Structures are given as C-alpha cells and as structure tokens.
C-alpha cells in the first residue's frame, strides 16, 4: 500500500443465519483507486479482510443483474456504482430492500422466480407456423411497442424501490409486470387473455399506487411503472367490456 493510497470505509449489513439472530453493521477499511466499483470494494473485503462475506455477482458490466444492493439506501447495481463518488464519506451497503436476507448481501429469490414463471415469459404464438412457412415478421413499429420492456435483466432493483411490494410481497411487482407486458404487446403473441388473469388478480396491478421509483432506479432504461399503469387501464377495460364480450376471468 503506497503512502497516498486512499482508504474508504465500507459499512456492510451482515447476517449469518446459523449464528446471528438479526443483521448487524460491520465497517471495513478498504484501500481503493478511482476506477473501483462498490462491487470491487466488497470483493476486496472478501479477498483480504473477511472471507465469510457473501454476495452475488457475475458479469461486472451491468448486464447479468446479479449484484444489486442498497448503496447508501438507494437500489443500485454495485458494479456500476463507484467508490470515488462517496469518498471521503463512508459508504453503506445492504442487501436489496423488501426481500428476505438469506445471508449478508444475498437475498431470497424464490418469490420472484415464481412470479417470473407465472407470467409465461415467452411467446405463445398467435398462429402456429411450420418451419417451412418461415419466420414471424415484425415491423419497426411493432418492435417499438415492446422493445424497451425487453431490456429487463431481472436485477430486482425495481422491487427494492417499490414500497407496495415491501408491504405486500405477493404483489407481482414491477419487473414481472414489465415482462408480462412485453409479451402481451408483442404482435406475434396470443397469450394476452391468459396473462390478463394475473393482471386482474389480487396480486395484480392494482397494488400499485404510482410511486414511480421503480422506473427511476432501473439501470436498463425500462419503465416498469408505465407497464403496470397501462395494465390498470387494460384491466379496467377487461372488467367493463366483459359485459359486452364475455371472456377470461381473474385468478
């Protein structure tokens, strides 16, 4: 360590289920350079200060969606948040809010994975086509209808930004609804009626009170609040139009 090596304090919320009754703060002093991300800071802790620190990460370039954490209380990808922006103050790192803490910075994902499965995040073809008939064609306008929603990387920052999900974890939530919407508005898809049952359900879009923070924290420029709120309109239309054209139901 050179003389002018800068050292930043990283405060981590620790929790080991086999020995801790509840989480507690632990402060580490981490030498850093200006190009180091918060993720590299916690990697330094694991490599040199405390090997028992647990966290998820993979790509280091904001595409895998594994390294989401609360950084000074803001849901962030730790790989694209830099220590230099906090120095000389201390930086606080905590597992993503609104999810159960499995261990240290690792959250329980089961709830979200179940939701992701439930929305059928794949194209349910509107019309069956054989290989001989060739590919499905789509115009740029048809692509534009869903493109931004397809950028979701399932990092769950939007859930950590959604107080309604925190208060009611059964709410299907921002990312799953954005992905659901991505398929519903795809011109090749014919699964809308099935997915609307989820939108209309107790777990559906009406849990949202338009806080809008989900869209603010999204690292990929997706607007999940827009997907949720457009589906409030769709759900209301479903409700009233059933008198004219009976179809579908609600789960």
């Amino acid at each position, binding site marked *: 360590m050179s003389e002018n090596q800068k050292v930043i304090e990283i405060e981590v919320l620790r*929790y080991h*289920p*086999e020995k801790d009754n*509840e*989480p507690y703060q632990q402060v580490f002093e981490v030498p850093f350079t200006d190009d180091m991300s918060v993720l590299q800071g916690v990697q330094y802790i694991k490599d040199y200060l405390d090997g028992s620190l647990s966290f998820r990460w993979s790509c280091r370039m904001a595409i895998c969606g594994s390294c989401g954490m609360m950084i000074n*209380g*803001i849901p962030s990808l730790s790989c694209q948040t830099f220590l230099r922006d906090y120095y000389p103050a201390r930086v606080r790192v905590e597992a993503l*809010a*609104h999810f*159960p*803490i*499995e261990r240290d910075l690792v959250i*329980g994902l089961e709830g979200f994975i179940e939701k992701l499965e439930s929305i059928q995040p794949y194209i349910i073809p509107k019309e069956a086509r054989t290989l001989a008939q060739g590919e499905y064609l789509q115009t740029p*306008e048809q692509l*534009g*209808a869903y493109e931004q929603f397809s950028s979701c990387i399932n990092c769950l920052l939007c859930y950590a930004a959604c*107080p309604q999900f*925190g*208060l009611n974890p059964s709410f299907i939530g921002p990312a799953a609804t954005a992905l659901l919407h991505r398929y519903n508005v795809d011109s090749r898809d014919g699964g809308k009626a099935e997915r609307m049952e989820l939108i209309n359900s107790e777990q559906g879009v009406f849990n949202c*009170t*338009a*806080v*809008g*923070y989900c*869209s*603010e924290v999204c690292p990929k420029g997706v*607007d999940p*609040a*827009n997907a949720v*709120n*457009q589906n*409030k*309109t769709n759900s209301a239309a479903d409700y009233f139009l059933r008198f004219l054209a009976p179809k579908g139901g609600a789960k």
Partner: protein
Amino acid sequence: MSKRRPYVRSMDGWWRKNPFFVEYMIHEGTALFVAAYAGVLLTGLWRLSQGEAAWSAWLTALRNPWYIGFHLVALAAIGYHTYTWFKIMPRTMPPVIVGGQRLPGWVITAGGLAAAAVASLGLLALVWGMAR
C-alpha cells in the same frame, strides 16, 4: 437440516427512508386539500339551497382571516398536487405516437400543466366577469 433462516426486515417508517418516498407522501397528502376544498364548495352549494340569508352568512364567513388563510394553504397544496400529478402522468399513459415518434414524457407533463393553467385562468376570468 437446513440452516436457512431468511431474515425479513421491518417496513416500519419506510417512507422516511428515502427522499423520493417523502416527496411521494407529501404528494399523496396534498390530495386531502383537494378533498377539503371540494367540501368547501359543497358547503356553499348546500347553503345556497337554504336561501339567500344562509348564502350571505356563508359569504361573510368566507371573509374570516382563518378561512382566507386556509384558502392560501389549500392553493399552495393543490398547486403542488397538480405539479406532481402531471409529473408522474407520462408513466401512467399508453405511449402517444406522433409522426411515428413516441412523444417524450416532458411534453405530456408540460401539456398537462398548461391545460391546468389555462383552465384555472379561464375559471378565474369567468368568475371575475360574473362578480362585476
């Protein structure tokens, strides 16, 4: 046996933990002033239905400094509510396509605020004209 024991953090005081949530709560809170002002107008209508004396008594009551103070506070609160309402509006709407391009959010917000301003000034001019 599994050593898993997921820890669920409390949501107590959630809205104080982030400035964005504080702003959201203020925005939602100012809706109470919108409701209160609807109450004021309905009271006026009710007093009008009771005849001229009741109506005049209500008009006199409105001149009470406390009532005028309430009006100023309500004006500020409803103004803030209007601003934050239109700020979130682009997120709540289906995309508006103009000339093949999606209309940017700020245009929708600006349009909403302009419509609110025009409606308020129009109403003011109408009432002003009737009062003269």
